[in-house]
């Protein structure tokens, strides 16, 4: 639990951070440090330098545009997100998930950008940003670009972020009227991470039938799973318990389910079914108001 030697930089602007990153390719960006530091202490990561972006003012804070869209700085903490009224209004799913991360200490330090960039499949936020159709803003030597959340996660701990790029902002469109959402997680009893996390969004037509649905999962595969077929099957349905159960039973497929000593792949799929149904039902109830 003693890390090897490393240099430490604390840039004050995104530009400076990008420059530092470019000039020392062996460096790692440090945000809340709640994933990076443990890896360094276990000597599983040994960056030559650490670039602490945690105090760059531009990377912090939550802004709600007139359109309803949220702009969340990458270094905004889980606590800030979970307790933000703007987030609770526009994207309550994100606030609900952030509130379930770790414990109080973790939520006060850990950041949304770090969580997404780290791309731990058992994290709570990846499936949530996918379900919300968020866009991730990255800044690099070539300037800035936007990445749709659905294209961001490649594999276990791997994203489309290029070396030298920093995640700067997460843009989340507001959920419309008549929409409900729910994030449920089945905790790993040791780590508190998700053995399975289900993010559901349901929008109603004026007649109460399903206009749109989303169902995404954390923890069951190396990257967030978008159960689009389940959502498709629900559109136009009456969203009865039976309709939801049937949609999940008939259409939920987890591609490349992961299994380990904590939970086998087959059990994780069962968890996904159980949590998926519950999350959809809760989202429906909330949409109905």
């Amino acid at each position, binding site marked *: 639990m003693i890390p090897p030697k490393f240099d430490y930089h604390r840039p004050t602007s995104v530009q400076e951070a990008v420059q530092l990153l470019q000039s020392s390719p062996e460096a790692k960006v440090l945000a809340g440090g709640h994933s990076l530091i443990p890896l360094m202490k276990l000597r599983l990561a040994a960056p030559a330098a650490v670039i602490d972006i945690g105090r760059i003012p531009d990377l912090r804070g939550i802004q709600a545009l007139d359109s309803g869209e949220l702009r969340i700085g990458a270094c905004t903490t889980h606590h800030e997100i979970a307790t933000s009224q703007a987030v609770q209004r526009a994207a309550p799913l994100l606030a609900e998930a952030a509130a379930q991360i770790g414990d109080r200490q973790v939520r006060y330090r850990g950041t949304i950008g770090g969580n997404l960039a780290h791309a731990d499949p058992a994290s709570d936020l990846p499936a949530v940003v996918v379900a919300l159709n968020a866009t991730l803003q990255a800044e690099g030597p070539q300037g800035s670009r936007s990445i749709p959340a659905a294209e961001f996660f490649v594999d276990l701990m791997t994203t489309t972020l290029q070396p030298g790029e920093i995640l700067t902002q997460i843009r989340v469109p507001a959920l419309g009227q008549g929409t409900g959402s729910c994030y449920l997680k089945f905790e790993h009893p040791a780590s508190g991470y998700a053995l399975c996390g289900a993010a559901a969004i349901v929008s109603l037509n004026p007649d109460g039938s399903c206009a749109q649905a989303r169902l995404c999962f954390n923890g069951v595969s190396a990257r967030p799973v978008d159960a689009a077929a389940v959502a498709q099957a629900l559109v136009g349905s009456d969203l009865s318990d039976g309709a939801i159960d049937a949609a999940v039973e008939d259409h939920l497929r987890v591609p490349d389910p992961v299994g380990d*000593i904590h939970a086998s792949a087959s059990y994780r799929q069962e968890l996904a079914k159980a949590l998926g149904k519950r999350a959809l039902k809760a989202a429906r109830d909330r949409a109905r108001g």
Partner: protein
Amino acid sequence: MTHGNGTRGIFGSAIKRREDPKLITGRAKYTDDLQLPGMAYAAILRSPFAHARIRHIDTSQALALEGVLAVFTAQDVEEAGIPGVVPVGWLLPTLKTPAHPILAKDRVRYVGDAVAVVVAEDRYTAHDALEAIQVDYEPLAAVADVRQAVEPGAPAVHEEAPDNVAFTWEIGDREGTDTAFQQAAHVAKLDIVNNRLIPNAMEPRAALADFDPATGELTLYMTTQNPHIHRLLMSLASIGLPEHKIRVVAPEVGGGFGSKIHHYVDEAIVSFASMKLGRPVKWTATRTETYQTDAHGRDHVTTAEMAIDGEGKILGVRVNTYAAMGAYLSTFAPAVPTYLYGTLLSGEYDIPHIYCHVTGVFTHTTPVDAYRGAGRPEATLVIERLVDECAHLAGMDPVELRRRNFVPPDKFPYQTQVALVYDSGNYEAALEKALEKVDYQQFRREQEEARRQGRYLGIGFSTYIEACGLAPSALVGQLGAQAGQWESAVVRVHPTGKVTVYSGSSGHGQGHETTFAQIVAAELGVPYEDVEIVEGDTEAIPHGWGTYGSRSAAVGGSAIATAARRVVDKAKKIAAHLLEAAEEDIVFEDGKFYVKGSPDQAKTLAEVSLQAYLAHNLPKGLEPALEATAFYDPANFVFPFGTHVAIVEVDPETGQVELKRYVAVDDVGNVINPLIVDGQIHGGIAQGVGQALYEGAVYDESGNLVTGTMLDYAVPKAHFLPAFETDRTVTPCPHNPLGVKGVGEAGTIASTAAVVNAVVDALRPFGVTHLNPPVTAEKVWKAIHGA
């Protein structure tokens, strides 16, 4: 009940722990907080292989790093000519005792086995240097599983035990038991695993060795539950310094649960390093080292059977257990699955025939030794699971079957078929109290109703007994202990009447500073604030055996009470002399001595003590000063017992088990401090629930500990647990001066069985008869869905 009839009410009062302010404000000094001038830091290189031959070790690159003072290997230990091993402290007739060198010689036997030590000017350099040591290993086949280790052809851990059998041991009457089984109406047979546990004391182990070349004396500050045992073993087997040249000090110790009883290689290694360098050397385990090297607990695989007649009377119990020892025999390892396990297999029941056979097995894993409860939780799980299964087979209520088999209150002292003599007990009283608290009949109705709605509730009972405060010394010696099991105390009244007590117990979070002061305040009639407790220093305390096996109150506390009573006896003589009365006419009450009938002419203990020290006017022949020493060797074990009840709900879709209620009625004899007793019970229950639902060390095929961090190994968290409902019955111990029993392990001993029984009860509609802990959600899900 107290002899001195001292400060009324202090014994038994729920006062807050006096040690807590320093602990919770971070002012307590633990081993790792200590800084000595010229101190260097050690880091220990550990084997990444479960089994390998060491072909060569190259330390040159490490030595070349700036700030590295030395690197030592087995070769250095050998050249120094010291004994260089850590010994086993409990022998059994068939026990194989392969040597456990403090640094591995030519072979490593588990992941974590110590290979070399780096000493450097700072911790960072020491850890960097570990990576610079080149070890040429030849990996060999390993076996981590206790059953696989005794299969023919399994890789041998030690040449001395080619079949990996460390010992075989039996207790009870084999033939009588076999015959009894032939009369059975029902026989329950279960394959029971007592899962391997990692102790997880909050403070990692640490040692700071300070050898003074000028005097030849070694002071060793360390995380220990028993400093004198460490001094003895260090002297005899590890570093070879004479015992009087070694001082072992236990600064504040942050929990142990048994893991800090044992003598590890690490404290010997830093002592050796300090002797070589003539500088203080400190080592503190990382959490990874803690997981890999603190002796683990449990790891039994058992086939257990219980026979009952048509009325539900138990006819016999037959148990065959394979118990992992790990790669080396830890200090008291052989005692745990034998004398602390087989002897407990009668439970609270009058069982005419019992037979138990145990095979101790070497595996390429972390050594296994005493962990909170040590043998008794394992036995309780076996017996309480069997009782439930018998009730199921007989179609009886599990409570009723227990009632029919309890040792009745008029049968004490009760001689079990497995060596112990239970001195006292009233099992049904505790059971009835627990039933009332849970409202058992009402629960069964709710359970019925819930099942109709597709909800699965379960109730589990554990009517447990435990034997703690191991005693007397002559008996434990016959059983193989290479240690006595008495305890020492010095009660010293100062000239002003203030009191310092030196105890051979060695607390590490239990609250001795509070409870022991309560005992003394009650005995001497002095204010509680006037009593100071000193523990954990071989230089200050006569020999002591330390704190483990729930022995501190029953044995250490009894030693203190005995010494305090001797102080009162002497003070009485002096008071009689001062009051010019006969000793028999002196009354001692509330800390004052007076002549019967004249309470207004009293001498306080302080007044008497001052005279004792001035020695101007003492009775003829009486020595000055006012203190007494006691070496208290108990007549028997003590036998706490009780009923624990768990209520769970199982989610059939996910397999998740929710612990909804937990009721504990314990009988720990007279209670010194109810707050502390409740605290011990709470912590114990939490750890037992951990074994039942969450914890379990897992090794892969190559012997890697895959649950090597807190990310993977699930210690129960506060939000997993309900508010515990505790209550007590009081059956005082009949043979010690305070009537106290032990409480440190009771919660752990009882709770695993209660929770597992509750889960099985919840799953009865699915035809489930047994699940082995940890009963994880996936295991439950599979049991429900037949997967």
